[in-house]
Each structure stands twice: as structure tokens, then as C-alpha cells.
């Protein structure tokens, strides 16, 4: 029995369908999933490996040819019967076969790489649908302004430090109060534009408790270089305790007005660790 991507069960199908379905499953297995760090790592290193290989082969071949056909070398006379002359009408030389072969090969490599990563893009864009599991999700509003980041929790609590539990999918809904910023946590591989008047989303799962840094990735004015925020990943129990102590005011109301700084207390990392 085989299970296709859409979860249907197939039994007693003709042989060729079974093979096709099996290959679908295998392709599915090849697509990186998991946390965004996993996803990035697996794709990045495949690209690095292939990129290096292609680079070395192509540049190596260039240099080899340039040396082989250097003036004064033993092959320099090879093409002497067909050298260009001044004033001739420009035409092409050589045969196109090799050209098209290499072109076709490079096209296949590039296209299959991108198609391969497209599966992951679909997963990253909609992780819940792809995983078919109703994992718990924490949604936090992020507001960028010159030159700080503010985080607003479902209970209305607001702070300048992002505190999240480990192993939980955190969905960030990001906007800006003034100019165009870009919010990114490099070690957790979450990043999205912070656009005034619009919201964008990104998500991450932190699998290690600890402190991380968020930066601004779009030039936003004089303080851009220092527009950072602390990201604290806690164990679930510690997080629960911390969250219970935040004064949300409005309970479960999630504030989307982008002006949440007025109704929340500000937590510092000292208060957290105390």
C-alpha cells in the first residue's frame, strides 16, 4: 500500500501507477522540511557543493583551453586556415553542437535545482498545511520603527525583546510604524520586510534555548546599523511562567493596531532571568 501526497490509500492499482506513485513519495522525501535552519542548511550546502563543482569545472576548462591554444604553443596553428580578416562581414565560427550540449546541461542543472527548492518554498510558505499536524502556534506582532523593534503578544503584552518557547512554531506578523525596515533573526533563519501600512508574515521554530539577535536588513536611517533586538528562547515551562507574569491588560486580544507600545509594560532581559 502506498500513500500519495494527498493522503489517499491505493491498493491493487496497475503496476505502472504504483511506480509513479512511489516516485512521487520519494521526491517528497527529498524536499527539505523541518525548522528553517534545517531547510536552509540542506539547500545551502547542496548549492555550495554543486556551485563549487560547476565553477571549478567551467573555469578550469577555460584556463585549460586558453593555455592549450596560446600563441607559440603546440596547438596554436590548429585554426590558422580560418583566421578572421579585417573588414570581413561578421560571422560565427565553430560548430554549435558543443555549445548547445553545454547549454542544455547547464539549463537542466539550474532548472532542476530550482524546482527542487520550490517544494521547500511551498512548505515554508504554508508549513501547517504541509505538515498536516495541528501543532501549537504562537503569533506575535512585530512593529519596526526608527530604530527599535517592538513585540506584541496575544495578551497585549509588549516588549522590546522577543521571548519565545523552544520547539514551538512562532508566527511573526510584521509591520512598520514609519519607514521600510526588514526584520530578520539570522540564526533562526526568519526574515521578512517591515512595510508601513502593510503586514507580512514569517515563522520559525527555535530548537535550542538561548539568546539570539534580530537585526534590521533594510537601510532605514541614521540608526540602522544599531537597530537590533534580543531574542530569548526559553524552555516551555520557563516560558509559561514568564508569560503568566506579563500583564496583558486585555487578556487574549491581539493588538494589530501597531500602536501597542502604549498598553504594555516593557520587559528587560534582567527582569526575565531574575
Amino acid at each position: 500500500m502506498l500513500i500519495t501526497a494527498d493522503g489517499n490509500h491505493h491498493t491493487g492499482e496497475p503496476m505502472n501507477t504504483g511506480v509513479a506513485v512511489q516516485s512521487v513519495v520519494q521526491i517528497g522525501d527529498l524536499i527539505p522540511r523541518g525548522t528553517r535552519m534545517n531547510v536552509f542548511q540542506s539547500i545551502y550546502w547542496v548549492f555550495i557543493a554543486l556551485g563549487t563543482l560547476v565553477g571549478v569545472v567551467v573555469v578550469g576548462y577555460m584556463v585549460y583551453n586558453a593555455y592549450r591554444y596560446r600563441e607559440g604553443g603546440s596547438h596554436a596553428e590548429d585554426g590558422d586556415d580560418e583566421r578572421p580578416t579585417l573588414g570581413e562581414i561578421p560571422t560565427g565560427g565553430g560548430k554549435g553542437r558543443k555549445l548547445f550540449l553545454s547549454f542544455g546541461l547547464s539549463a537542466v542543472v539550474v532548472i532542476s535545482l530550482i524546482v527542487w527548492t520550490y517544494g521547500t518554498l511551498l512548505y515554508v510558505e504554508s508549513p501547517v498545511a504541509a505538515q498536516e499536524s495541528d501543532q501549537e502556534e504562537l503569533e506575535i506582532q512585530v512593529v519596526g520603527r526608527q530604530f527599535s523593534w517592538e513585540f506584541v503578544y496575544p495578551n497585549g503584552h509588549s516588549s522590546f525583546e522577543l521571548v519565545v518557547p523552544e520547539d514551538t512554531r512562532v508566527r511573526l506578523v510584521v509591520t512598520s510604524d514609519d519607514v521600510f525596515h526588514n526584520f530578520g533573526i539570522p540564526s533562526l533563519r526568519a526574515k521578512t520586510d517591515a512595510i508601513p501600512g502593510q503586514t507580512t508574515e514569517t515563522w520559525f521554530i527555535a530548537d535550542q534555548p538561548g539568546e539570539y539577535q534580530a537585526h534590521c536588513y533594510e537601510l532605514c536611517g541614521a540608526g540602522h546599523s544599531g537597530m537590533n533586538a534580543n531574542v530569548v528562547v526559553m524552555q516551555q515551562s520557563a516560558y509559561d511562567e514568564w508569560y503568566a507574569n506579563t500583564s496583558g491588560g486585555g487578556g487574549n486580544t491581539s493588538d494589530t493596531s501597531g500602536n501597542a507600545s502604549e498598553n504594555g509594560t516593557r520587559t528587560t532581559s534582567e527582569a526575565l532571568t531574575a
Partner: protein
Amino acid sequence: MSSIKRWFVTTNHKDVGILYLVTSLFFLIFGGLLALLIRVQLLQPGGTILADAAYNQTVSAHGLLMVFWFLSPLAFGFANYVVPLQIGAKDLAFPRLNALSYWLYLFSGLLLGISFFQGGTFSGGWTMYAPLNVPIYMPSIGATTTVLALLMFTASVTVGGVNFLTTIHRMRAPGLTLRRMPLFTWTILLTVWMMLFAFAALLAALMILSSDRIFGTVYFAATDSGGSVLWAHLFWFFGHPEVYIVFFPALGVMAEIFQTFTGRRIVGRKWFIASMVLVAIQSFMVWMHHMFLTSINLPVKTLFMATTIGISLPFDLMVFALIYTTIKGKIRFKTPFLFAFGALVLFILGGITGVFLGAVVLDYEFRGTYWVVAHFHYVMVGGVTGLVGGIYYWYPKITGKMYDEFLGKVHFALYFVGFNLVYFPMFLAWETPRRVFDYPEAFTPWHQLATVGAFVLGASFLVMFYNLYASLVTGEDAAPDPWRYVTTAEWAVPSPPPLENYPGRPSYDGGALQFLEEAGPRPSGIAAADGGAGTRTDGGVAATADGALAGGHDHEESHASIWPFGLSLAGFFLLVGLSGVNTGGTAYVALTVAGFALGAYTLVGMARESQTFHGPSGPFGESWPFAKVENMKLGMWFFLASDVVLFGAFIGSYVFIRVAFGWGAWEPVPHDPVPGLMNTYILLTSSFAVVMAMVAAQKGSRNGVVASLLVTILLGIGFLGNKGIEWLELFHEGLWLSTNVQTSTFFLTTGLHAAHVIVGLFIALYMLVRAWGGAYLDDDKPVEYFGLYWHFVDIVWLFLFPLFYIL
């Protein structure tokens, strides 16, 4: 003519080419010094050489200078010098416009220089994202000046683009069909096509931004109506083609150099050209790959991912074509070839790292980091590498002297090592956020290496400058063809070429380049040009305008015109004035007025000179597909095509903002469509009047021409008067440019149209005066060209009226 004065009045394509080359190298030094400042700041995390705001200004000005004021103009120096020679033209189609584009370019650069002293130059990066680019967030006058400098540069590019398009399409030697054109000329042709449309979109973006900054419209500050994203769309619609605009000429140079120094014709030439055509068209369909992290949805992302991958594939073919060209070659590692070969290596590395960015999941993480910085420097400075090869390649042709080969090779060694030392570590330290000078400690060694590399790269140019300068004096005289295995026509004439370029009429009709005598064909051949015919070698660089006419063929009596310089100077005054005119400062207001006055004076001067100044006149050899259209008319068509894109971008911006605002919730600004409707009738009638003027001119009726033009002018004035009353009423109701986003789009878009009407009226007034004196009776073409423009302006109104009054 004194030698200094000559450079101010020259309109010769070779002179203008030299001016472009020298000026662009000056801006290379300017932008390069800023780059060194950046690298010094990055020696340690949180560097302190520059303060926050100063650092932002430095990165912004560095980017703007290198992309706009150095890269393209360097390429257009070659284009000016070489393209007419390659296609067998005596000059560009419109020599004075060519000088005009140069002077606009120079003065726009000076404008950028001035901006540093007006409270600081623009500090929002070369991408100038909104709404950081509006005065609330960036109040300095210098920032406005920078935007105006770009506006002036765009004007220069548009004028230049129209000129090159007309020249290359119309003025090729007999037998030189488009398919047979040399590759460098091909790349320039495609570059100017892209420029015509891409820069029109940029022009719209810059006009709107200038208006936001000076008149207080609220396009980009209207963040609730998508203003911020609107800028990104407009900018990147220009910005991606711009990548190819700066890279294609380098590709052309590389192709020429590869063919010459391998002694091989390029493999798959047809496909090479087809690939470039494909890229040029597709370049307008990939811009949103710069916006993958904005709120665009998955289907759009998928589409733009696909087009992006699609556009990378033709480059694979071009790269392989260049590589296979070396097979069976007889490769001579002269300096030009070293640079072209090096450029290809760098471009391959840039291309591979670009594929990473094509994978959207990776792009998410690379966005705003040094991966992007490193990647586009490999591509763009890779292009510079090819162009530097072009400097050495054509130096003997332009100066008539050989450069020093040893110093050339030293330059290449330093350059190549320095290049990779500065940019490769950026890949290793790619997690550094872009335009940030604070980075993780762990990256310090890589950034320090990059700084060392930057100084090596900079020093390599000192070697080049010394070499080029010293060789002017001490270099050996260069033969017409110093390389062997060249094919293109510029090598068939002396180095430097004489003022009139050729010893006869160039033709490819016999299957190869020949120079024909004026009367009847007499194949003088290449050999003659090589040796015996080199009588006027003093032409290009050092010659004065008298080195002509020996060949007996007719030659324009004068190539000198001061008006392009004067007009650009007027534009410079005007824009310096405008930058601070809303502060009310006396100096700024005075400069604005003076600029206007000088501009009007020079325009009239230039127009009057048109009666004696003639550009190259036909018939030309190959003009497909425009054999039936004269140069002037074709130039008008190209200009109007760019104007279509300009208005298209304005209307597109309006629609974009209105959709973001809520289409139905948006009320037209004028409550009453009747004045607009009246104006529609007025304009349509005026178009009819222009047609009457044409008919009268053809019939030879002076009174008919005068009367029809008069009616046109009166109707135009009526249009403006009617509009003025309407605007005044709106103003009294408290609705003005800066009231809200509705009024901003209404006043600015219809205002742009009104400005077109005003320009048309001035032209009509000038023509009326001339018609009074009996002009146009035996040559009605000026009336026809004016008609083209006037009808176009009317048609635009037919779109604006329903959009802004009815819907």
C-alpha cells in the same frame, strides 16, 4: 579654434566619446574613494571613522556614482567613439543632442557633488526606498539635489538613447544589415532599447519623488495606500533592466576582445545575439524578484522565480559561446585579453552565486546581506573588468599611441588579486547585514581582508592612470590595426581616425568592407586604408575642425555648437535653485529664475542654429526597418515611445495607489467633469488645426499655415486657461497638491500633461514666428513632427480624462 574652446563646442562623436571616457573615470575616482571610506569603516565592527548618517551617505553616494555616473558613461564613451565607426556612419544622427547628453551628464554629476554641501547628500541607499526618501524622514536639501541630479542624468540618458537608436537603426553602411552588425554595436543597440523604456520608468519615479520633496505631494508618504511598495515596483522595474544596461556593453567589449585575441570568430554568433535579444525583452519581467519578502503572494513569487531562472539561461549560452571561441585559437595574452578573460571568470562566479538567489527559499535568507553585495559586485565590477579591457583595446585607436604592455599586465595582476580579495571574503562573511557597519566579531578577519583588497584594487588603477597618461607622451605610434585578426571597421582607418572617419564611403555590398569614392564605386580596399590613405591621421584627438574636406565629399560646414553646453548649464542652475526653492531662500529662487531664463534663451539659440547646423544626411545604406522614415521623424518616434512609458508609469502609479486605497471609495478630485470634457473638445479641435497647418504648408499657403498655427495656439491657451480656472476653484476649496493622495495624483498627473501642452505651445509659438517669415512652405516636415507630438499629447488626455474625472 583654441583647443580649450573646442571641447566646449564640439559635437563630433569621437570628441564626445573622449569626454565621456575621461569624465566617467573621474567619477570612478570619486566613487572609489567613497568605497575606500566604507572599507576603512568596516575594519572593525562598529567602526568610528564615519558617524551613522555619514556612513549612510557614503554607501548611497558610492552606489549611485558607480552605477549611474561611472559604469554606463564609460560604456557610452566607447559607444560614442566606436559605434559610428563600426557601422560606417560619419557621426551620430543628432550631433548636437549627443553633446547635449554629455553636458547633461557632466552637470548632473556636479549636481551630485554639490549635494554633499547642502546639509548632506541622499542617505537612503542607491535603491532609495520609500518613505525614507521623503522630507519627513530625510529633510536635507542635499537629498533633494541628489534626486534632481538623477533626474538630470535620466534626461541625458533619454536624449542619448534616442540618438543611438536612430543612428544604429538608420545609418548603417550598405550591406551591413542588422544580422551582420559587429557584436559591440549589437550590445549597444540592445542597451539603448532597454534604456529607452527602463529610464522612462525611473524618470517617472524621480519626477514623483521630486514633486513629493519640492511641491509636497504625498505619493510615497501615503503608506496606507501602498506608497512604500509603489516605489519598490517603480524602482525595480527600472532597476533590473539597469543591471543588463550596465552589463551588456561590457559583454560586447568582451566578445570583440575574445575574437581578436583568440583569432577566432565567436561560436554560435546567431544564438549569442538571440540570447541577448531575449534577455533584453525579458529583463522587464523579472523585477519582483527584488521583492520576494514583501507582501506579494505565492503565485506571483512563483511567476517571478520562473522568469528569473528563465533569464539566467541565455547567459549560460553566452558564457559557453565565449569559452568555446578560444578553441583552435592563437591566443595572445595582451592586456585587453587578460581583462576580458578575467571578466568572464568573475562573471561566472557572479552567475553561480546568482543562482543561489534565484532559489526563493535561499533568497529569503540572503536578502539584505553581504551575499547580495558580493554577488552584484562580482557581476557589476565583473562588467567593469571587461570595460577596462576595452580601455586598453581601444586606447591605441583613440590616442594613436600604444600603452605600455608591461604596466598593463601589472595593472591586471593587481586588479584581479585586489578584486577577489575585496569581494570574495564578502561571501564568507555573508551574514553581515548590508549597509551596516556593526557585524559579529567572528567576521572581522574577512572584513579586514576585504579592506586590504579594496586598497590593492584602488592602487591598481593608479598604475593604469600612470600608464595611460605616460603613454600619451612616450608611447609608440599605433598602426591602424595594432592587434591583427580584428574585423571591425574602426581598425581599417588610421589611429586616431580622421575627423570624417573614412577615406570614402564605407560599404559591405561587395562582401567585405570597401571604401568607395563619391562618384562611382572604386574599391580602394583595406590595404589602401592601412598604408597609403593614412593622410589625415591628425584628425581625432588633437585635430581642429579644419582637418577635413580633403576627400572631396561634402562635409558639414560646422560641427561647433555652444548651445548644448549652455542648455545644460541652464539646467544645472535651475535644478540647484529648485532643490531649495521651497525654503524660500533668495539665492535658490534667484537661481531657479536664472536657470529658466537661460534655458529659454539657449533653447531659442539652439532652435535657430538648426537652420544652419546639419547632422549627417542620407541616403544611408541599411536602415531596416526604418528606411522610409527620416532621422528626425524616427527620433521623434523613439522619444514619444519613452514618453508613453513615462505616462504609463504615472497612470500605473495612480491605479496602484487607487487600488490600494480602495477603488470604489475613491472620489474623483474635480466634482464637476464639465471643464475636463470641454478641454477634451478643445484639444481634439486643436489637433485638427495642426492637420490644417500641414495641409496649408503642402499647398504653399503662408497665410494658411499662420492661421492654423494661430488657432492651435489659441486653443492650447484656452485649454490651459480652462484648467487654470478649474485648479483655482479647487484651490479655494482647500484642495491642493499636498492635501491628500487623491489630490496629489490628480494634480501631478494632469499637471505633467499640462506641462506637455505648455512645451507644445512654445514650439508652436516659435513656428508661428518662422511661418510668418515664410518658412515651411517648401519643407513641411517640422510641421509634421510638431503634429506628431501634439497628437500624442491629445491622446494622453483621452486617457487621463476618464481616469481622473469620470471613473
